[in-house]
């Protein structure tokens, strides 16, 4: 008797995207098993952000397929896609909190928008969720502009997990933070993803962060995955791209476009 392997939570096949003559994603293939935490690493301009935006439906790829739970999200209509997005959380690089709304409304924005809770119910709920990311009730009434970078990231994390998503995306979660705050955010991400039992998909160029968050690491270079393996194996991967990226050496197969 053969056991049937469950389909991956996210399956990407032949994903391509070009902006004019610049090819950003080049027939990229990637599987993300349910309940795992994958971190895609790569240099600036390697296609990480475009990849995550394609999966989220913010950019339409030129070719390829993206399946979530076995369903091709690229062929879905707007309403169906919104329903899929209802099970997705996203933490943006710059937090992307809504300036015009107080923190509590930011945290519960998705829940209110989907009419899951009323505005009256939202505030105590937001305070509960803020507590899960280590923020007190006093933060709820503040405006995002009154928060430090680390607090904004925590509020953004609270917003990402508020609807108890199946998949959470993290775009450079520690960028712009000091190493201690970066480690705190990483620990919160790991704890919350584990609590939700969610699949985590992160992109970063912070190696320390990648090792803290990831079960699996994938390296993207010039729009393709050039290595994928367990996070523990990243320092002795034997892959010249990964080795150069981990050591930060200027010598190796990765050539940055720098004019001298």
């Amino acid at each position, binding site marked *: 008797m053969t056991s049937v392997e469950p389909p991956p939570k996210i399956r990407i096949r032949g994903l391509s995207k070009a902006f004019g003559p610049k090819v950003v994603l080049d027939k990229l293939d990637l599987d993300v098993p349910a309940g795992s935490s994958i971190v895609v690493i790569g240099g600036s301009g390697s296609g990480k952000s475009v990849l995550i*935006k394609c999966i*989220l*439906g*913010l950019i339409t790829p030129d070719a390829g397929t993206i399946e979530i739970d076995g369903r091709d999200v690229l062929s879905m209509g*707007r309403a169906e896609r*919104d*329903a899929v*997005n*209802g099970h*997705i*959380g*996203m933490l*943006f*690089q*710059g937090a*992307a*909190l*809504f*300036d*015009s709304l107080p923190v509590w409304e930011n945290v519960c*924005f*998705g829940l209110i*928008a*989907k009419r899951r809770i009323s505005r009256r119910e939202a505030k105590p709920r937001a305070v509960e969720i803020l507590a899960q990311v280590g923020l007190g009730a006093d933060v709820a009434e503040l405006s995002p502009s009154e928060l430090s970078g680390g607090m904004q990231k925590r509020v953004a994390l609270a*917003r990402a997990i508020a609807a108890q998503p199946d998949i959470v995306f993290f775009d450079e979660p520690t960028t712009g933070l000091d190493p201690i705050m970066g480690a705190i955010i990483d620990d919160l991400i790991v704890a919350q993803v584990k609590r939700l039992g969610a699949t985590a998909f992160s992109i970063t160029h912070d190696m320390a962060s990648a090792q803290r968050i990831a079960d699996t690491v994938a390296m993207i270079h010039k729009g393709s995955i050039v290595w994928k393996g367990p996070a523990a194996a990243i320092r002795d991967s034997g892959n010249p791209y990964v080795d150069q990226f981990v050591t930060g050496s200027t010598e190796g197969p990765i050539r940055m476009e720098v004019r001298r």
Partner: protein
Amino acid sequence: MGAVLGFIGSIGAGLFSVLATAGQVVLFAVSALGHCVRPPFYPRLLGRQMLEIGYFSLPVVALTAIFSGMVLALQSYTGFARFSAEGAVATVVVLSITRELGPVLAGLMVAGRIGAAIAAEIGTMRVTDQIDALTTLSTNPMKYLVVPRLVAATLVLPMLVVVADILGVMGGFIVGVFKLDFNAGAYMTRTWEFLKFEDVFSGLVKAAVFGFVIALMGCFQGYHSKGGAQGVGAATTNAVVSASILILVFNYVITELFFAR
């Protein structure tokens, strides 16, 4: 020869760019209008925008209207005195204000105040990923950001113009009675005597169109801004300039529709 061809080519490229942008604006407007009639609706946001666009624009529109009415009375008097036609001042003031100056000046003032604010706010949301964040939170940015501003501006501009009409006529009355020594009753009689419904109505139609144009250009420029602070600045400038030009263009078109014989 090469330089001439290059010059002609650059004119052609510029023309194509303008046409492409015009096409994008039309598609954006059609999409926004489609979203206006499909749920979900955001009455809370609509109310907030009506307050922002209407109530908070009252002082600037009121001051513009009252001083325009005053200067119009003064200028008409000094001009008409040459033909001994001073009696027409009140009629000229009321017709000029209701047909042209009320809607156009209110439109231009609101374009400067609100068009710029809309473009800056939506543009900042675009370059800081807040619009993408809306999409990931299953909220359509066109419905959440664009529709409330379009509907609010279209509804509120006519209300502002009613206020501008009243204050403009009042400005003319103040100068006419207290400076030019017109009889107050006679001035008001001349004001009402030749005023027709279509004079006021055409101004209100203009105001609604101007409101739509101001919000449309602010939203369009903000929605498509890119490149950080510089991009947002450019979007703000483009929103005000394009809205102001379109106000003057549509002013002629609507005047032609109402009054051309």
